[in-house]
């Protein structure tokens, strides 16, 4: 060689890698310790959800929907159920709405616990992970009591929920709320305001607001960039208008607005808000039927797109009905899919060690990316 040059090296990260949060492969082009390119390759967990959905009846799609974002099944079910209900024009009984919101918010806490726990693990701290999973387990116990399942619940049905609340579960949820509130403070102490953790996440992977909107980021990733946007408040659905809660946004408290720490902190603060919602809902829950009286699920020809606020952002379903018993087309718009698409922009020029911090801060679940 005439001139001495540094050579770019391509490294394969994944699909089996503890910090990719699932079967994600990233092609990293590196120049020394600097990441030049990060090209995500997805599809390893593709399970043909949309094709399957065309071949079963509306109710039969529900278990498949569970398996999209498999750590927030209740939330997925709610979006799908709401889309079909909109096509049908069915009104869900008040009690069912309350049960749904309680379950959905508990699932949001469980999902955020997994997100922050594993994020700590990515950065290199082990204890918060164990603490988060210990508390998540308690939520899973509640779900098991309600639905019989620990991960994939199939509990929210079209028109309401599968079963009324099990006797004794309300006390158990109340107990959990009282137990969990101080635990968030503990997590804050050991992780959020840990100087090592802050140094690893502040000013890293900054997403400016215009980039976030252009990439269609939603949920905590968008709010981390400073936009106060939450569908529960801005396009209210279900019983959210009757409940009081705040929307945490990233403020650049430790560094720049839209850095990894901001996105992480939005999730931590959202857990407190979810607890608030669960408590209010438990107080206000009325008596009554838990499912609407319905004939067969057979919507008139038409199409509808409904989106809701899931733990990882907005999940939307675009359903086309031809008037038959099976949906003509079901398209799931996943927030993780759009989140991971901006990875290359974020990783360009970052240190290799920060790539892991950036992926973790986007909080993706590959089940929803690949569908």
């Amino acid at each position, binding site marked *: 060689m005439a001139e001495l040059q540094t050579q770019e090296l391509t490294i394969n990260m994944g699909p089996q890698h503890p910090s990719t949060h699932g079967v994600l492969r990233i092609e990293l082009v590196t120049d020394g310790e600097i990441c030049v390119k990060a090209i995500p390759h997805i599809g390893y967990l593709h399970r043909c959800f949309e094709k399957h959905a065309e071949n079963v009846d509306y109710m039969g799609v529900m278990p498949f929907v569970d398996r999209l974002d498999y750590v927030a099944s209740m939330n997925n079910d709610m979006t799908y159920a709401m889309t079909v209900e909109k096509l049908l024009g069915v009104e869900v009984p008040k009690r069912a709405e309350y049960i749904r919101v309680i379950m959905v918010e508990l699932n949001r806490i469980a999902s955020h616990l997994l997100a922050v726990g594993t994020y700590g693990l990515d950065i290199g701290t082990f204890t918060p992970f164990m603490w988060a999973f210990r508390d998540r387990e308690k939520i899973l116990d509640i779900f098991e009591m309600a639905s019989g399942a620990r991960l994939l619940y199939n509990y929210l049905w079209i028109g309401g929920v599968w079963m009324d609340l099990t006797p004794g579960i309300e006390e158990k949820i109340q107990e959990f709320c009282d137990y969990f509130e101080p635990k968030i403070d503990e997590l804050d102490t050991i992780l959020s305001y840990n100087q090592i953790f802050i140094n690893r996440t502040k000013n890293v992977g900054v997403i400016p607001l215009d980039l976030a909107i252009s990439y269609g980021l939603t949920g905590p990733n968008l709010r981390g960039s400073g936009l106060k946007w939450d569908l529960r408040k801005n396009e209210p659905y279900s019983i959210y208008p009757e409940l009081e809660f705040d929307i945490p946004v990233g403020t650049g408290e430790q560094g720049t607005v839209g850095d990894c720490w901001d996105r992480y902190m939005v999730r931590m603060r959202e857990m407190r808000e979810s607890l608030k919602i669960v408590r209010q809902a438990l107080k206000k829950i009325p008596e009554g039927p838990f499912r609407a009286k319905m004939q067969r699920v057979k919507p008139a020809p038409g199409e509808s*797109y409904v989106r809701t606020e899931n733990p990882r952002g907005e999940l939307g379903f675009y359903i086309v009905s031809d008037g038959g018993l099976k949906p003509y087309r079901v398209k799931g718009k996943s927030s993780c899919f759009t989140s991971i698409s901006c990875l290359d922009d974020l990783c360009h020029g970052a240190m290799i060690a920060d790539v892991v911090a950036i992926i973790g801060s986007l909080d993706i679940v590959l089940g929803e990316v*690949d569908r």
Partner: protein
Amino acid sequence: MLTPTIHEKLTQKFENAILPLKELPPGSHSDPFIAVNSSKLHSVLKYLKEDSDLLFDNLICISGVDYPDRIEVVYHLFSYKHLHKVVIKSLLSDKTKPVLESTCDLWKAANWLEREVFDIMGVHFNNHPDLRRILLPEDWEGHPLRKDYKTQEFWHGIKVGM
């Protein structure tokens, strides 16, 4: 701004490229949509994004739907500035090689969303920077969400299907 107003505005600007608004039957719970001639789609979307009264800065979703006589590509747009949304549809009657103009220059989100539509529905996007399959392996045959799709028998010696 509601769909009929947006439709009126678009018709004034693009005339014949915008198809008349379809009346929804009474009691229907369907979303209203605006159908656009596919050759003018890109300029319509550009106008929707850049006009100061419309400012659709967020591309929510691109979906492909296969009908017996056509393929529809559906764009769900939203504006964080004006808090309104619209559904734009493009009808492609040539099912053997459906082609649209890419919108990657307008929204970055379009890159992957268009790749997905290409992968599972077989719609080509002109001027797309990187039009590859995204969910399926690169050497997969056919586009699974077409209604007439038949699964290939073997893929690299592995039996496909049950």
